[in-house]
């Protein structure tokens, strides 16, 4: 995943540097929404950037996902526009979500030490949306879809005793979280490369 960002940036830069050869544009999408699942409804925020050509958008993005456990999804973003004036679109995002700000170490009465560590996992989001054209190159997107995130959690209970070694409980959790995601997005083009 570490190589994805520079590669995509390179792709974007190369698109900028190329002479106009197709109906391409550099496009950014900023989204805010709600992830609703069995456990809760929590806010999400995303940003994607990429290239739009021949009704396809391909880009990369990152976000903040607070559903159950805080994660930062990093993903590839693929979209297909269709309909009159491209008012409808399908989107799919696939990547990896990185846990953040979940880890903790605390003691209970100095007798038990609890260590909480999280591991990342697969991130998927796919759905359908509707585009409302605003002024100039700005558009408002409404979308809904199914999202899935996977992550793991290692919890260790270390019990204090008078002399070591002391008892220990270790728990490994694997979470597979499905949600319906509704987003409202602001989409804009930086420049029209074929114009």
């Amino acid at each position, binding site marked *: 995943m570490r190589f994805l960002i520079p590669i995509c940036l390179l792709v974007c830069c190369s698109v900028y540097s190329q002479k106009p050869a197709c109906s391409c544009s550099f496009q950014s999408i900023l989204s805010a929404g*709600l992830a*609703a*699942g*069995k*456990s809760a409804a929590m806010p999400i925020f995303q940003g994607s950037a990429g290239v739009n050509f021949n009704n396809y958008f391909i880009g990369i993005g990152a976000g903040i996902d607070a559903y*159950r456990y805080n994660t930062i999804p990093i993903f590839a973003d693929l979209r297909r526009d269709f309909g009159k004036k491209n*008012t*409808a679109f399908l989107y799919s995002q696939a990547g990896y979500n990185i846990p953040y700000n979940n880890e903790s170490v605390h003691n*209970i009465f*100095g*007798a*038990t030490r*609890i260590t909480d560590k999280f591991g990342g996992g697969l991130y998927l989001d796919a759905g*359908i*949306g*509707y585009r*409302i054209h605003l002024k100039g190159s700005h558009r408002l997107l*409404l*979308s*809904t879809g*199914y999202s899935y995130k996977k992550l793991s959690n290692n*919890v260790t*209970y270390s*019990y*204090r*005793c*008078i*002399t*070591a*070694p*002391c*008892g*220990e*409980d*270790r*728990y*490994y*959790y*694997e*979470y*597979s*979280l*499905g*949600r*319906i*995601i*509704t987003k409202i997005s602001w989409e804009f083009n930086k420049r029209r490369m074929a114009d």
Partner: protein
Amino acid sequence: MKPITKIAALTLAILPVIFSSCVKDSCKKMHTYSYFVPVYKTKDEVKANIRSNSPKEVAYPGKIYIRGNYIFLNEINKGIHVIDNSNPSQPVNIAFIDIPGTLDLAVKGNTLYADMYTDLVAIDITNPGTVVLKKLVENIFPHRYYGGGFLGSNAQDIIIDWVRKDTTVMESCDNPRGIFNMDGRVFLSTANNTSPASSLGSGTLNSGGQGGSMARFTLIRDRLYILSGADIDVFNVSNEHSPTLSGTTTVTWDIETIYPFLDKLFIGARNGMYIYDVSNPDVPVQAGKFAHVRVCDPVIADNTYAYVTLRSGSECQGFTNQLDILQLNNLSNPSLLKSYKLKNPHGLSKDDNTLFICDGADGLKVYNASDVNNLQLLDHVSGMDTYDVIAYNKVALVVAKDGLYQYDYTNTSSLKLLSKISINKQ
């Protein structure tokens, strides 16, 4: 807004409501718990093995005693490492004396005394490479017991080790965790006793050698004084190889450390420091007491002052972390002269006017104590979690969580690391 836009917006808003009940969160949970199974040997087998066996790596260091060129380092509940310290820059671990259940030690002449669960052993260490068990006194420490009140399946056998067993089971994610999910299991620690595990090191000067400030065994002339439960047990060791119980004096529960000076015993307890007069060696008599808040408090003393470190946390409770210096002009009523704030002080040692304090994770601190009203920090060795220190003959022996350090303090403003014996917990 165009009608199609309204329809699209409405549809997209309704879809999540309809489908949110279709999605689910799934959770798999694996629970791995550890418990310990005792390994037994008969008492005869254990006695036969109390000798100089092959050296072992230090894993869980306990109290320490220096005698001549040798360091005797307790391996908690396992035995005693014999370390040839002729060259403090290059100490050599030469042997290991297997003594299951041992936590404390003291040396008089050529005899090492150590506890073995409820028993006391006397070992001839004339030649530390080939030590010989001389006597075993049974049932001296009735307060010793295994963790969880576990007594073993056979009182004649001795637990020499615990084998860790890990078991992994799949559980429902709804099951509670940790202490709320014991399922009737019992976690057995290797042993339990009335002294905290962090009571490392010992601090007394006698004919046999020197220990640190956190000892529960100490010697004055021909008597071995041992803290056992709420009591001071007195052993007559005029015949070194044959200690005999000669007296018992009850002090209070929570007594933790004992330090001798001249004909006085300074006893650190969680609620204060006690001074006992041993003019009559078999009958210690309380000469004074200084009460303080409920914390752990190793103590050392000289002609004029007692130095008491008070620390909080876990088994010690309380919220006080400081050095108290007490005036001993009137032994029946020691008075607080001055307190110095510290982080988490443990053991301490004093050589002439140089005071060494193990300040837990804040390392080792060296003070000029020529004016007790104005201690001057001379050096601060950080980067180690220190328990106890013995300063002797210009070498400071420091027990820390990650090893046994030796520092040259010829220049008290700049301690020089001579050596480190690392701890290997596998």
